[in-house]
């Protein structure tokens, strides 16, 4: 075996330039794979984190839908009557969770739950002079909400505690504040869906970096919103949950669904479209990388074929002297593997250095994402895939020429 290595080494060194070029092909393939996958998954992780920074892992709410049957339907159903009620509309129904606080207490006992925030949310119009801007006011226990979404870090002005010191205080989204030209201490009149007007005072401004929230939402104390809606202190509309492991959201949501008679929505279901785009991005990454590796594989195939063509006579001599088919195959597989392993390892290194470099390049997301540089993931798993894939490609690309070399008939060559 050592002897085969020796012969392989001598052959490779004698055609150093081609060997290096073939190796560089693999290096390039693996390097680009690492760079791309690190960058793509970096983007995915950043988007996922951004999304989750504002999305509860599980949300429980009262999903008011159309009643499927009317009283008429229940009457004499299944008999010879055909009951037709055209275009059924929902009844006036309260949007609240009837035993909301009991559910909250119940969920708090769950080991897997990190935080629970009950809330009352309502659509409102913010009156800005003659203009009305649609939005929402969410009544929360601001400390509970902070536990879920780390509001403290998102405050642009004011502090979350300031909300507690007044009955009509709100924390306003930065986009909304800009539209309404609001600063701390300014007052805004809001109107609820049933026409109630209420004057609220801006005590702080927050920024999630997500337009859909920053441009529409304000936080208030639960009691403030309950009063706006003229409801009692048990009235809540949503329960938001943060879990210890957010990948468990789906299973936990399913378990809760059995226990509570309300709509239970996990973040994956709520953001299915975004997750599909993650998957697509991953597929593109893998397809491109595999293409690069296949190209590198062709490089190896080519160089080995050329070597074998040029070394036909040497192969014949070796076989004439008693080297068996598998020895010759071994000599060329060693060459392919050397190219694969050297190219693979240097590819990982190059990929790492490039990814690291990219991760230092400033990136201005216009304030939408919580990052100042390009997002890059450094995941050892990708490096493992890279090297395994690179080596597999070379084995595959090397095998066919090597087998051909092994099958060379020395008589045909030596007869001249």
């Amino acid at each position: 075996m050592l002897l085969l290595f020796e012969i392989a080494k001598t052959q490779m060194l004698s055609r150093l330039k081609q060997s290096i070029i073939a190796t560089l092909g693999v290096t390039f393939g693996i390097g680009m794979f690492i760079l791309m996958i690190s960058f793509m998954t970096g983007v995915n992780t950043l988007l996922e984190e951004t999304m989750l920074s504002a999305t509860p892992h599980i949300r429980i709410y009262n999903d008011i839908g159309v009643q499927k049957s009317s009283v008429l339907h229940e009457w004499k159903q299944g008999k010879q009557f055909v009951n037709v009620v055209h275009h059924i509309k929902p009844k006036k129904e309260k949007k609240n969770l009837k035993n909301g606080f009991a559910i909250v207490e119940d969920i708090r006992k769950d080991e897997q739950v990190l935080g629970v925030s009950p809330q009352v949310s309502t659509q409102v119009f913010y009156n800005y002079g003659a203009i009305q801007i649609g939005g929402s006011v969410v009544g929360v226990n601001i400390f509970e909400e902070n536990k879920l979404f780390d509001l403290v870090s998102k405050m642009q002005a004011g502090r979350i505690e300031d909300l507690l010191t007044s009955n009509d205080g709100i924390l306003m989204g930065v986009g909304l504040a800009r539209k309404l030209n609001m600063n701390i201490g300014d007052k805004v009149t809001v109107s609820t869906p049933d026409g109630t007007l209420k004057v609220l005072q801006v005590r702080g401004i927050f920024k999630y970096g997500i337009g859909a929230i920053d441009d529409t939402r304000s936080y208030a104390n639960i009691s403030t919103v309950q009063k706006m809606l003229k409801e009692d202190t048990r009235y809540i509309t949503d329960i938001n949950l943060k879990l210890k492991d957010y990948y468990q959201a789906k299973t936990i949501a399913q378990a809760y669904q059995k226990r509570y008679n309300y709509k239970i929505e996990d973040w994956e279901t709520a953001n299915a479209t975004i997750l599909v785009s993650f998957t697509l991005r991953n597929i593109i990454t893998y397809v491109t990388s595999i293409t690069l590796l296949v190209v590198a594989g062709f490089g190896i195939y080519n160089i080995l074929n050329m070597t074998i063509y040029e070394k036909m006579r040497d192969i014949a001599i070796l076989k004439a002297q008693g080297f068996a088919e598998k020895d010759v195959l071994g000599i060329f597989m060693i060459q392919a593997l050397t190219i694969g392993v050297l190219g693979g390892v240097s590819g990982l290194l190059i990929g790492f250095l490039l990814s690291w470099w990219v991760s230092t390049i400033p990136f201005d997301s216009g304030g939408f994402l919580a990052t100042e540089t390009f997002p890059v993931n450094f995941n050892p798993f990708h490096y493992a895939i890279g090297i395994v894939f690179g080596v597999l490609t070379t084995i595959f690309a090397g095998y066919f020429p090597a087998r051909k070399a092994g099958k060379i008939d020395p008589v045909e060559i030596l007869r001249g």
Partner: protein
Amino acid sequence: MEFALKAENIIKYFYEPVEFQALKGLSLEVKKGEFVSLIGKSGSGKSTLLYVLSTMDTDYEGNLEINGETLTGKKQNELARFRNEHIGFVFQFHYLLPEFSVLHNVMLPALKLGRYQRSEIEDRAYEKLKLLGIAEHAPKKASRLSGGQQQRVAIARALINEPAVIMGDEPTGNLDSANTQIVFDIFRELTSKYHQTIIAVTHDDEFARNSDRIIELKDGLII
């Protein structure tokens, strides 16, 4: 009497471009320590016969025995192993591995056989090179040597595993008369002093005349 090589009724066909019988059922026996010349007109089948005898060509009918071992019907792997141990081959063109040193070229078959340690193989290779008078070229690249020198390296290589038979297809065909004489003397010495068996195809009448026995081929038969 012990035979180094015994071939019975060897028949060899070529099918491309047209069916052609190159060897028409010939038999020969070569004794241990014998120096045999194989002669005959161009196209008479000398090379073809030699490739059959060397076990490299397995597509023939008949029976081949070397060193008392029947080789006909053996698998390629076994034959490779057998060649490595028992057959030395010298080609008309020197056919060394050009990237390897002279010493390394000689060592390769022994390294493959693995009968001795590397250091011992190196000593033996030196010995063979000394025997052929080219020891001082040992560290040089094989491609740097003259034709005659390369041919002697090839002979040293054929000797390294102390094979039962050394075969040569026009081993002096590319050499001038002085170098031919040197190679002949080496063969002579190998057979008489070391009891090596040699079968050499040659076009050189003098070379043939001075060997122990001449076998002449004509149209695939021995005459």
